[in-house]
């Protein structure tokens, strides 16, 4: 190094410059890892079935769970995803807003989701489930048929039982092929009942239909047959409403499947 004589020696200026290296803000490492999806932030949200924990990262929402204590939720998260997780006060405003709109039934509200670690089959099941409109339900067999694996009804049930993002991915809108409401992972079937009631799907009526063996509803004016909760089915006035026990029965009487809810033949 050259050294020039002056009021300040080069060495003392260099020393002052070395002193300009500082520690990064404590948030930098954590924020960077969250942006990259190598760690998650989490915060509580209020839902129709009580407070829940939501975890998210730069790729999207990764987990929604009702496990009570924060420490229990953290342990569950780490065991499932093997990443660090960091408690923060609230969700980012934009994310909070799309989740709120989505839970209120706005299907245009796009909630980014992080489904890394799920199989292609599980993702297909979860994506298809996201298409079911608020206040409507579809049987497991319908999901299986729609994703091109009509025989995989049990596997659909398993994939939904492992849905990491309930409410946002509305697995409460998937019911048993016999029409009974069936299982729900987020706190059991009574929560499924509450959610469907809150969405206006009338689960008691669904159970009554299941008991009576009615799986589909047609209109004798349009000759279209639907799932009972399809928005078109709900518009049929009683005088024109025709119940069916199977899609085969409806088709034998000249009814065509609704293009919007797409009923399929299913093994009961």
């Amino acid at each position, binding site marked *: 190094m*050259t050294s*020039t004589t*002056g*009021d*300040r020696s*080069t060495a003392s*200026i*260099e020393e*002052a*410059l*070395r*002193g*300009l*290296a*500082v*520690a*990064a*803000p404590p*948030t*930098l*490492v954590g*924020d*960077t*890892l969250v*942006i*990259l999806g*190598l*760690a998650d932030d989490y915060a509580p949200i209020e839902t129709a079935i009580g407070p829940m924990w939501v975890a998210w990262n730069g790729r999207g929402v990764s987990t929604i769970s009702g496990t009570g204590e924060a420490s229990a939720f953290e342990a569950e998260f780490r065991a499932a995803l093997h990443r*660090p997780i960091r408690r923060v006060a609230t969700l980012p405003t934009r994310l909070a807003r799309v989740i709120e709109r989505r839970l209120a039934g706005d299907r245009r509200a796009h909630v980014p989701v992080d489904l890394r670690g799920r199989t292609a089959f599980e993702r297909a099941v979860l994506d298809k489930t996201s298409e079911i409109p608020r206040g409507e339900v579809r049987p497991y067999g319908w999901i299986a048929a729609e994703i091109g694996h009509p025989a995989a009804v049990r596997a659909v049930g398993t994939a939904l039982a492992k849905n990491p993002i309930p409410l946002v991915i509305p697995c409460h809108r998937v019911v048993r092929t016999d029409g009974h409401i069936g299982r729900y992972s987020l706190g059991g079937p009574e929560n499924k009942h509450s959610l469907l009631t809150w969405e206006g799907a009338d689960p008691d009526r669904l159970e009554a239909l299941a008991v009576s063996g009615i799986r589909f509803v047609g209109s004798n004016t349009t000759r279209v047959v639907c799932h009972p909760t399809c928005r078109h089915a709900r518009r049929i006035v009683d005088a024109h409403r025709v119940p069916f026990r199977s899609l085969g029965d409806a088709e034998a009487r000249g009814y065509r499947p609704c293009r919007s809810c797409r009923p399929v033949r299913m093994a009961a």
Partner: protein
Amino acid sequence: MDDDDLLHALARDLDGAFEALVRAHADRCYSIALRFLGDPADAEEIAQDAFVRAHRALGSYGSERIAELRLRAWLATIVINLCRSRVARHRLPTTVLTDAPHLTAAAGPSDTPHERLARRESAAHWAALVAGLPARYRAAVVLRHVDGLSYEEMSEVLGRPEGTIRAQVHRGLALLRAAFEAAEREESIA
């Protein structure tokens, strides 16, 4: 874990080893950006962005290319380039005194000579002087003396021959000395 171990770990398992990379280089990347741009919030954003880009780039490199990287220089390149494009985009003023608010306040009559001296010797004062350097000298001085890169590494970062960079560092230090002494003279007149 030194940088060679880190590179081997990244080549084996990018996501698993990336946290160690961020922890090892966060202070450096932040300091380079802070001293180049002058603003702590901008610097934090740039450092974050640099790691995100580094992660993306490493994901597209094969393990051989990762193992051959000169990590310190490679990360500094990403940071400096982001800083430059930010300055170009926002037409940032060269001298930002945000982290030296007391520098802009005139010395009050109550200041003792000792207080004046302490303020002159403070990091904030030097930071403000560095922030006032023309960009090419600022980059050279920051990389060499704040971050401590070798001239060989700097040649890689700045894409210039070592001789050119040596001259820029030398010139940058001379400008800093002149600015420091000018501030000193101003104070003695005040």
